């Protein structure tokens, strides 16, 4: 439970860490979109290499990255299996009972799995290199133009900051409640699905009550310090774009160009590489 790398900041000083969070957020989005656009094995390989490059520059050990991937292992497997068996096209490779594996099905399954992997990696890289506060600052800044049409960018960013800040607190609380109920004979790790679902109630209810209680206390504390929402609110650290950010943006644009070229040209020229997807 305590090993959720997806979302955990890895505090180290690197050129990537020092980039403006807005650039990193847009980069992550861009990479995810590219992962879904790239139509060829070369495209996926390029994106994977790009991410590896970023990992190296960010001085984050690959083991941290793999921790994040472990958590979606089941989802990856599920996606792969679903696509392999139920997407048909091209030549039939294996046929058994109602299950058929075709060449196109296999390729598609691999592509789907790759996309998921790249998506998770890009997202994980974002959170590993950007502190939660920087992240929400970045999101708030990016969304602030929308405030003109009434979108509560500041409030949303505040909600995210608070949620992130309370994750460790609530995890500790969960641990404590689990222990308290275990001490009274509750069992959480045995039994069928239904039994386990029922066993969670003595855990969820106190947790919910506790969360509401904390929310109320926090609201009062914030009000007592004159918090009144985003209007007229200033910050101590103002986000400013720098030279490194410009470099990053240029690199990203070039890379995007490459991927698009690869997709358009190679898909036309070498349909095999595209796997017909």
């Amino acid at each position, binding site marked *: 439970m305590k090993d959720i790398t997806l979302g955990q900041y890895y505090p180290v000083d690197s050129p990537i860490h020092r980039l403006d969070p807005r650039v990193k957020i847009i980069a992550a989005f861009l990479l995810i979109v590219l992962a879904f656009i790239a139509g060829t094995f070369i495209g996926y390989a390029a994106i994977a290499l790009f991410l590896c490059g970023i990992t190296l520059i960010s001085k984050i050990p690959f083991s941290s990255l793999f921790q994040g991937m472990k958590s979606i292992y089941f989802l990856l497997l599920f996606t792969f299996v679903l696509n392999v068996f139920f997407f048909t096209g091209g030549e039939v490779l294996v046929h058994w009972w109602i299950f058929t594996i075709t060449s196109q099905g296999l390729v598609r399954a691999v592509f789907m799995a790759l996309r998921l992997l790249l998506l998770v990696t890009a997202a994980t890289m974002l959170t590993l290199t950007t502190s939660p506060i920087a992240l929400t600052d970045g999101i708030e800044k990016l969304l602030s133009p929308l405030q003109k049409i009434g979108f509560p960018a500041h409030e949303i960013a505040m909600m995210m900051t608070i949620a992130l800040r309370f994750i460790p607190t609530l995890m500790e609380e969960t641990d404590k409640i689990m*222990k308290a109920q275990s001490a*009274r*004979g509750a069992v959480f790790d045995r039994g069928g699905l239904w039994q386990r679902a029922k066993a969670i109630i003595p855990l969820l209810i*106190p947790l919910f009550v506790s969360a509401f209680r904390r929310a109320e206390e926090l609201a009062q504390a914030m009000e007592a310090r004159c918090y009144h929402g985003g209007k007229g609110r200033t910050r101590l650290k103002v986000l400013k774009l720098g030279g490194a950010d410009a470099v990053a943006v240029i690199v990203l644009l070039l890379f995007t160009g490459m991927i698009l070229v690869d997709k358009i040209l190679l898909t036309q020229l070498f349909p095999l590489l595209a796997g017909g997807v």
Partner: protein
Amino acid sequence: MSIIIKNLCYTYGTGSLFEVAALLDVNLEINDGEYVGLIGHTGSGKSTLAQHLNGLLRPSSGEIMVEGIDLTNKKADLMAVRQRVGLVFQYPEYQLFEETIYKDIAFGPKNLKLPEAEIKERVYEAMTLVGLDHSLAERSPFELSGGQKRRAAIAGVLSMRPKTLVLDEPIAGLDPQGKKEILTLIDQYHEQYGATIVIISHNMDDIAKVADRVVVMNKGTKAMDGTPKEIFSRHDELLGMGLGLPQMAEVVRELNKRGKNVPTDIITQDQLFAYIQTHRAV
């Protein structure tokens, strides 16, 4: 013998970046019916040790026998241990979850798979023990006052009729009246059932009054073990560990600094008063 602990070591997060040795070579024996006060600074290992007593944590190394059950054995019957050793956590009122007080107190016995009739008997018995009026049985736990909630939570552990009751800061955050009530009910359980009690507390005065034995934890090891009089007379050692002293022990300390030579095994108000009375006319 209730609890036998030998060379117990426990490390949190073994192998990770956050590895912390919480308990180092702890040796402890607690006999049936003893009333033990477990004190120590924050991080000294008190709560970690307490969680070993009912199998919530298993030792990294060493031996621990609770009511005849060997907790180093992977196949140890945890349900049996948790029935014999009841553990009340700090601010236990935050674990209440059922629709009614009755159901919440019945949670423990239900997990023990006891028959309905027996459960009913135990729930009402527990409510009487903690001083909750039976009319409250059908109310929602969230409707009760803080003090009542705490008592309901304690009742939830007492309904399992543990032979050993371990309480982590049972009187934290209570007013003097509330403190008195809780300590009285613990005492009652001790007397009525001959139960073994282990209280973790920061409050030296209360420990000095109720415990027959004090165990002091310091940085993961057992630093001192003896009667309250023996332990609390060692002023300098206790202060050196970052612990406080019972108020009367502080008064004695100040008196002795001014050359009064008061015996340091005086730790309660009554004892000091008696001493002053007999040594007054000098």
